[in-house]
């Protein structure tokens, strides 16, 4: 195995593009090292992207938006008071992943690129309207987070491409986000269902809504019908009923030891309601 430590994303991309065998990018390593250990993947080229300048930075831009470096860990996000205040749902979703030790290494870009439908931070990233900057052999492009996963362990990134930053919009006024998940225990488990919601209000009426569901389909879903159920309402009982139905309708889950199809579908509806209420309260400053 060749171990590379490029000093720029274009160098990292060039190494990956010219590699003949299996390639993996290494940031936090909490998935890659487990896959290497379990012989799921034996990379010929391992490209450590942590020595690229700026990858550990959380930057607030002039317009209020945020740029997170690809090596920013969960712990660093939780410790950043201003970012946490702006996007509490995204930070909470990330904080749910693994133990203190995992939080010291794991990154949300890794969580996204691992391609798990149950990745906790991904519904929260999608609800937030986050995008990723991508560098590849043909140049740079920006994609919405929801367009990155294409199925379990699969992404839309092509050979030689890698994510160079994650962009989170400005939070703005009268807005809030939240993430809730269901697991059979109290800590450190894989989501049976996860739900991220981000709302903006005008005098109590919802003007913007994004609802994302995890672990109920081959990839994390952005559910437009859920947004439609919420926009123009004050989160009254009728809106919540429609939201619940829209969330259930979006589900296409697997049956496994952690949850049946029926269970996951019902929980998706329940979580959508609870998460929307939490985001709504936050948007009201409660």
């Amino acid at each position, binding site marked *: *195995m060749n171990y590379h430590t490029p000093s720029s994303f274009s160098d990292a991309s060039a190494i990956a593009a010219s590699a003949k065998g299996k390639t993996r990018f*290494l940031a936090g390593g909490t998935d890659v*090292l487990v896959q290497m250990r379990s012989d799921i993947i034996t990379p010929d080229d391992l490209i*450590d992207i942590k020595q690229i300048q700026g990858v550990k930075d959380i930057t607030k831009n002039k317009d209020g938006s945020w740029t997170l470096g690809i090596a920013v860990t969960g712990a660093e996000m939780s410790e950043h008071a201003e970012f946490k205040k702006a996007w509490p749902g995204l930070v909470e979703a990330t904080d749910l992943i693994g*133990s*203190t030790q995992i939080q*010291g290494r794991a990154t949300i870009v890794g969580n996204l690129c691992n391609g798990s439908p149950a990745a906790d931070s991904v519904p929260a990233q999608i609800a937030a309207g986050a995008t990723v900057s991508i560098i590849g052999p043909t140049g740079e492009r920006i994609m919405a987070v929801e367009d990155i996963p294409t199925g379990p362990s699969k992404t839309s990134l092509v050979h030689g491409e890698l994510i160079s930053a994650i962009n989170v919009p400005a939070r703005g006024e009268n807005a809030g986000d939240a993430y809730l998940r269901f697991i059979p225990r109290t800590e450190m488990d894989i989501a049976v269902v996860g739900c991220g919601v981000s709302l903006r209000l005008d005098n109590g009426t919802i003007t913007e809504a994004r609802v994302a569901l995890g672990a109920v389909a081959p990839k994390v879903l952005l559910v437009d019908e859920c947004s439609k159920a919420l926009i123009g309402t004050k989160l009254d009982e009728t809106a919540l009923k429609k939201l619940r139905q829209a969330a259930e309708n979006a589900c296409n889950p697997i049956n496994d030891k952690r949850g049946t199809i029926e269970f996951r579908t019902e929980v998706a509806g329940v979580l959508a309601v609870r998460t929307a209420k939490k985001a709504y309260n936050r948007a009201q400053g409660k």
Partner: protein
Amino acid sequence: MSNMHVTAKVNGDEVEFLCDPRETLLDVLRDRLNLTGTKEGCGTGDCGACTVTIDDRLVCSCLMLGVEASGKSVGTIEGMAEGDTLHPLQKKFVEHAALQCGICTPGILVAAKNLLEKNPDPNEEEIRYWLAGNLCRCTGYDKIIRAVQDAAKEMREAS
């Protein structure tokens, strides 16, 4: 690829080692630096037995490559006692019988020390959450929590 040359700090001392880039930091600590206090449990980041600090942040050394330690400061259980004088946490673990087989103990001590450096007066819930990534199959955890609380109290009074 041939072995790579790495320079790092371990428990305050500068060390140099050669390692294959596939070797984990845990392998390097145990097999190249002979620091066998750090234990291997699961090897996949689930149990916390191999917990060390990297630049004062907890990590599972099985989930990090030895080559990634280049230029970093690594803290292991061997850096905890000062000569024959046990760290208050180590003393309290003995007093409270907070260990049985002992495989998880180095990782728990390193994690608990890191907690008390950030939060000298954690409540029980905070201790349990902080140590949730350190599995112990012997003690049932209660004695560990009491030992950490007692050590924290002694350290607060001493400071």
